[in-house]
């Protein structure tokens, strides 16, 4: 097997066109990545915007904007209140320009304990949501469901601090209480802020699920909640955390004490991890790898030709006379172009991830932070994507034998689905395709995290893939294995 791989490697490296083609594939990825594609206004002179997102206690970039009606709490203590009602406003639909009445599904009204009023500081909150029942959330990324209950029904909530432990309880009647959960906020200081909060996130909605004309619309939303039975009643201060958020915050954000222990609070924003896409902001490091499809096409063409050229020249007979164990020949070919493509992908992605981010930031685009581990996974993932796709192309080349047919089929199988998804396919069809096509492996380039508790469209065009990196890679690997096994069977049975 070693001799076979060495022979195939010698074959590959001694045809200048193939080596150059692979290099061009890498250059294309880098070129697309360094082109100033995405523009923004962050840090541009005169805009006054520095585009810095607060960072949560666990290192993620977060949104932290809400109306907080609070008082200091020293040591242990608790707060109890009933969310009597929630109302809200949604952005106009696609065909009108008037605000609509309604509560966003992830609008939140409830009780909050927070380490001060700085954005991004540690917190725990129990809340009633627009459509997701009672939730216990803390430190932006953690979310635990309480009882669902019909939307809009009043709910009693209680938040109790015992040293670093925060316990959330809920009740339908204020008499029978059930515990939602207990969370630990490590390093919570002696004095914290405790109180009532209301917020309502950015809304995004898909419109026109048809070929080529998909659009999304949305905008800020707003929620107003009436709290009563607030105990203990003390002197509460209203603070708008986050901002300058939007027009609702400016015009409507605020609170009113309308009676003894009765507060009407209006807020907008979100307490959640920051996301990209229609309901989020900014670009991700994955956006710099936009050119991967171009590199992939080069890799696919050369890998297919690595096999079909031998059929065209009659050299397959020389190869098979030298190595009568035909399955191994195929494996050696796949291993060689797979390894070359992997290296091309890793090198190109490493350059693009490093330099491309800087280009985007220099253009004023906001680029979401990604951990080193995520960057490494995206870089290695790009290599795996190219490498395994190259192996699939070898299988297709051996199955189809004719160069033009095989190259066409290989491109239609690998690169075309991705391009369709990213251009004209409606999101539902696109997500379906990205679960079954070899292009599922593009998920290995995803750097943004999808959160169930953050309302967003999470579309492939925004860098959200339906499968996890591992599952996407497995789908591609399945295709490659199937093609190679089928090709090996045919190669063994057919006359050379």
């Amino acid at each position, binding site marked *: 097997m070693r001799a076979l791989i060495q022979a195939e490697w010698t074959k590959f490296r001694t045809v200048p066109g193939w080596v150059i083609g692979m290099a061009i594939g890498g250059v294309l990825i880098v070129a697309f990545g360094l082109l100033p594609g995405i523009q923004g206004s962050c840090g541009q002179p005169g805009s006054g915007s520095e585009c810095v997102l607060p960072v949560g206690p666990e290192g993620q970039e977060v949104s932290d904007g809400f109306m907080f009606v609070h008082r200091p709490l020293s040591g242990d203590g608790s707060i109890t209140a009933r969310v009597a009602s929630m109302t809200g406003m949604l952005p106009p639909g696609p065909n009108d320009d008037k605000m609509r009445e309604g509560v966003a599904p992830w609008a939140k009204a409830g009780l909050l304990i927070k380490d001060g009023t700085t954005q991004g500081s540690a917190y725990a909150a129990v809340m009633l949501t627009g459509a997701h029942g009672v939730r216990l959330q803390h430190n932006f990324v953690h979310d635990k469901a309480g009882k669902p209950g019909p939307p809009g029904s009043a709910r009693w909530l209680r938040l109790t601090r015992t040293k670093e432990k925060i316990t959330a309880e809920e009740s339908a009647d204020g008499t029978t209480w059930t515990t939602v959960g207990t969370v630990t906020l490590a390093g919570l200081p002696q004095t914290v802020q405790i109180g009532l909060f209301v917020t309502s996130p950015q809304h995004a909605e898909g419109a026109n699920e048809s070929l080529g004309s998909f659009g999304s619309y949305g905008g800020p939303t707003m929620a107003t909640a009436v709290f009563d039975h607030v105990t203990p009643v003390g002197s509460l201060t209203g603070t708008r955390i986050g901002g300058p958020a939007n027009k609702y915050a400016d015009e409507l954000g605020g609170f009113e004490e309308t009676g003894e222990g009765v507060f009407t609070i209006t807020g907008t924003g979100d307490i959640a991890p920051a996301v990209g896409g229609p309901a989020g902001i900014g670009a991700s490091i994955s956006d710099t790898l936009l050119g991967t499809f171009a590199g992939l096409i080069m890799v696919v063409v050369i890998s297919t030709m690595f096999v079909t050229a031998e059929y065209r020249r009659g050299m397959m007979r020389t190869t098979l006379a*030298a190595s009568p164990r035909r399955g191994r020949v195929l494996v050696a070919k796949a291993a060689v172009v797979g390894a070359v493509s992997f290296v091309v992908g890793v090198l190109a992605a490493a350059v693009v991830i490093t330099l491309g981010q800087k280009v985007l930031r220099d253009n004023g685009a906001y680029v979401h932070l990604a951990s080193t581990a995520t960057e490494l996974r995206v870089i290695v993932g790009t290599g795996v994507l190219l490498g395994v796709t190259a192996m699939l192309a070898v299988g297709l080349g051996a199955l189809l034998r004719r160069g033009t047919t095989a190259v066409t089929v290989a491109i239609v199988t690998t690169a075309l689905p991705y391009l369709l998804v990213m251009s004209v396919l409606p999101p539902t069809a696109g997500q379906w395709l990205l679960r079954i096509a070899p292009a599922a492996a593009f998920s290995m380039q995803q750097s943004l995290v999808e959160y169930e508790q953050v309302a967003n469209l999470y579309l492939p065009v925004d860098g959200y893939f339906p499968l996890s990196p591992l599952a996407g890679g497995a789908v591609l690997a399945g295709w490659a294995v199937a093609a190679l096994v089928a090709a090996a069977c045919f190669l063994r049975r057919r006359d050379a």
Partner: protein
Amino acid sequence: MNKTIIAVDGLRKRFGRTVALDGMSFTVQPGRVTGFVGPNGAGKTTTMRVILGLDAPDSGTALIGGQPYRALRRPLCHVGSLLDAGALQPSRTARNHLLWLAHSQGLTARRVDEVLEGAGLTTVARRRAGGFSLGMRQRLGLAAALLGDPPVLVLDEPFNGMDPEGIIWMRGFLKTLAAQGRAVLVSSHLMSELQDTADHVVVVGRGRVIADASVVQLLAATANGRVTLRTDSARAATVLADAGGTVAAAGVGVLSVSGLATDAVVALMNANGIGFSEVSAHRATLEEAYLELTRDAVEFKAVSR
């Protein structure tokens, strides 16, 4: 004394409705050049592909030293072959073409340089094979066949595209290889190419063996003891016929006599006082022998089409 090294036994193969091989059987012995001749379409190339494990026969076997080709682990060290000299990646250099083949057998680059020199290709070793003439490609193919220093060589039409000088070189080369004790199987559709080269000939037509004999036997069978006599005398024919010979005119003043030995013809002429300018035993060419043997095969093909 004969040690069979290629044993082809009862090969049958059809391509659709065409019968390519119809019970092909023969053996190849070491130390001599075996010519494998027959008209185009007789099944020579298919037989060679089966020997090399490239095509699978419908029935029958082809063994190399008792083993099927596909069971050989470093096949190029057992059998060197040249099927299609044009089977080259044009942008790869001659040396690199041999290099990947060498690597596939675990051989080194040194061996590559040796065979390049043996084939007289050292000066063009680093040129792209795509620019080679057919003759140079044949040399490169021969170099590839010799990479593993194999005891058996299977060469399909190696004279194709060679200039006269190349043909002479190739003949000498093949003889040298056989003298080294190798078994050399060379196919050709032109018998003349094998004249003075092959020791043994396997003549095939329509997918089966028509004749399998040494060149000496084949020539003797075709010549059939004929004597050519050049004379102006009208009596010569009568005298020879009276003495029991079969006489035929073979041109103006030329008689072809069979049934009488050369010295008997000379004695008869002298005894009867008939003058003659030449008398010679007829030497059949391999070409004549071949044409005689393959006439049926060719005619059948002409009719069946």
